């Protein structure tokens, strides 16, 4: 219990709440970095994902590319980019955005693929344009899985954004590197615990979001089902069945 106790003491130590390297400051930096990375990755991944899901083409290429991107070690990519553009946040943003793209891309196109083909076909047949199908049918119905992809990406980014501290005075990773290098394991473990807490908080937010965006009518199991007789009684015609199915 020594290390965990030390780490908890470190987290609760008021000295760590003052100054530029304070816990709240680093945590906010870390969170801000995560959100901006998700934004950048979404800007790239979502249009492609929607295009693939809507047209039904290019899925194989997307899967292969995602696999390739996932295989790139983030620290290696970060170092390579930093050698090119220098220290600071540029390289971390590039490397972490690459990390975040595959799950968001998958969330975007699987969200569309999960939609009942009949509904889409009907939408087209009654006269919706392709854009209208996209905005009025596919996006609302595909949103839950897209949020799921964002959730997965958020988790990966918040855990790996500690690497930003490799080349920048930024984020919760500073506690990890500093603690590691100076053998201050309380700091290192404390920093890790903070990252975990942040990750759990994001998970909770996204889980809620994922539930909220399910369109009413799709989460049908929870809505009251009214299977009352639909036909008006017509003269001379005995209803074949009484209550229940029309």
């Amino acid at each position, binding site marked *: 219990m020594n290390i965990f106790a030390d780490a908890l003491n470190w987290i609760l130590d008021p000295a760590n709440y003052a100054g530029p390297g304070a816990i709240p400051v680093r945590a906010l930096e870390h969170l801000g970095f995560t959100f901006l990375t998700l934004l950048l990755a979404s800007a790239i991944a979502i249009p492609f994902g929607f295009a693939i899901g809507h047209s039904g083409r290019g899925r194989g290429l997307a899967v292969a590319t995602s696999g390739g991107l996932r295989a790139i070690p983030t620290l290696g990519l970060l170092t390579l980019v930093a050698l090119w553009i220098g220290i600071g946040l540029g390289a971390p943003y590039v490397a972490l955005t690459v990390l975040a793209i595959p799950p968001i891309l998958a969330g975007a196109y699987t969200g569309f693929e999960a939609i009942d083909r009949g509904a889409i076909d*009907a*939408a087209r*047949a*009654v006269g919706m344009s392709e854009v209208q199908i996209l905005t009025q049918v596919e996006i609302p*119905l595909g949103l839950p899985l897209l949020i799921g992809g964002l959730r997965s990406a958020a988790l990966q980014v918040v855990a790996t954004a500690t690497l930003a501290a490799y080349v920048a005075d930024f984020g919760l990773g500073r506690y990890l590197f500093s603690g590691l290098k100076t053998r201050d394991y309380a700091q290192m473990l404390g920093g890790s615990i903070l990252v975990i807490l942040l990750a759990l908080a994001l998970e909770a937010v996204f889980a809620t979001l994922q539930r909220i965006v399910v*369109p009413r009518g799709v989460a049908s199991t929870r809505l009251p089902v009214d299977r009352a007789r*639909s036909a008006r009684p017509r003269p001379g015609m005995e209803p074949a069945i009484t209550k229940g199915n029309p």
Partner: protein
Amino acid sequence: MIEFRSVSKQFPDGTLAVDDFSLTIPSHRTTVLVGSSGSGKTTLLRMINRMVDPTAGTIEIDGVDIASLEPVKLRRSIGYVMQNSGLLPHRKVVDNVATVPLLRGVPRKKARADALALLDTVGLDRTLADRYPSQLSGGQQQRVGVARGLAVNPNILLMDEPFGAVDPIVRAELQQELIRLQTELGKTVVFVTHDVDEAFLLGDQVVILQQGGRIAQIGTPTDILAHPANDFVASFIGAERGKRALHLERHDGRDVLVDSDGRLAGVLVGDAPGQGVGFR
């Protein structure tokens, strides 16, 4: 009037769904395309609203070649009802019905009011208007689908095996509704089915199709029943082995109908009941 002129459709994978098909579909009547799967009946139907485009030949609606028309606009002027209703699951019933009017720019309030009236037309309780499709039974969903098809008061109503996914009792009800609607509204209905009894029930003109959209016979139900054109038609309608050739017999003081094998096919009950049912 819908006119098919030497229409063919070959899909990219090589299948020839329809080969040199020509047909005139009269206005204000119900024309039924009936055949087994692979006969191209659904393909032909979907060519009318340009969900499928022919690889050869032309299709004209009231003299206008539809290839010259913008597909989205065309579809908004034609009613389309499919199997499994194809309703948007995330929209309320009333909004589903009002889909096309809203697309055409009708103000929201009016579109909804019209939609509610349409629910009456198809025999649905107005209390269902604010429910979601998943809360409705299969039969109710199909009625909503029909209401949606009628929303812009189109001249043409395309129906692709719309009653195939519901149980026989509901199917019979829906068939009766359609007949009643037709009597009231007189649309040009093109109806696709694989069920020959349904074809004879609903069709003013029945087109029996073989593989590749080849027409085996066109005619009124009575014509086809009385004079099947060839063996294919005969077996298709069940005329072989005398299942359709019935004669009257007297059993226990009642008139019964018996087929050529001596099997009891039905009981004669006198005049035709209430609304148009059976053969015209």
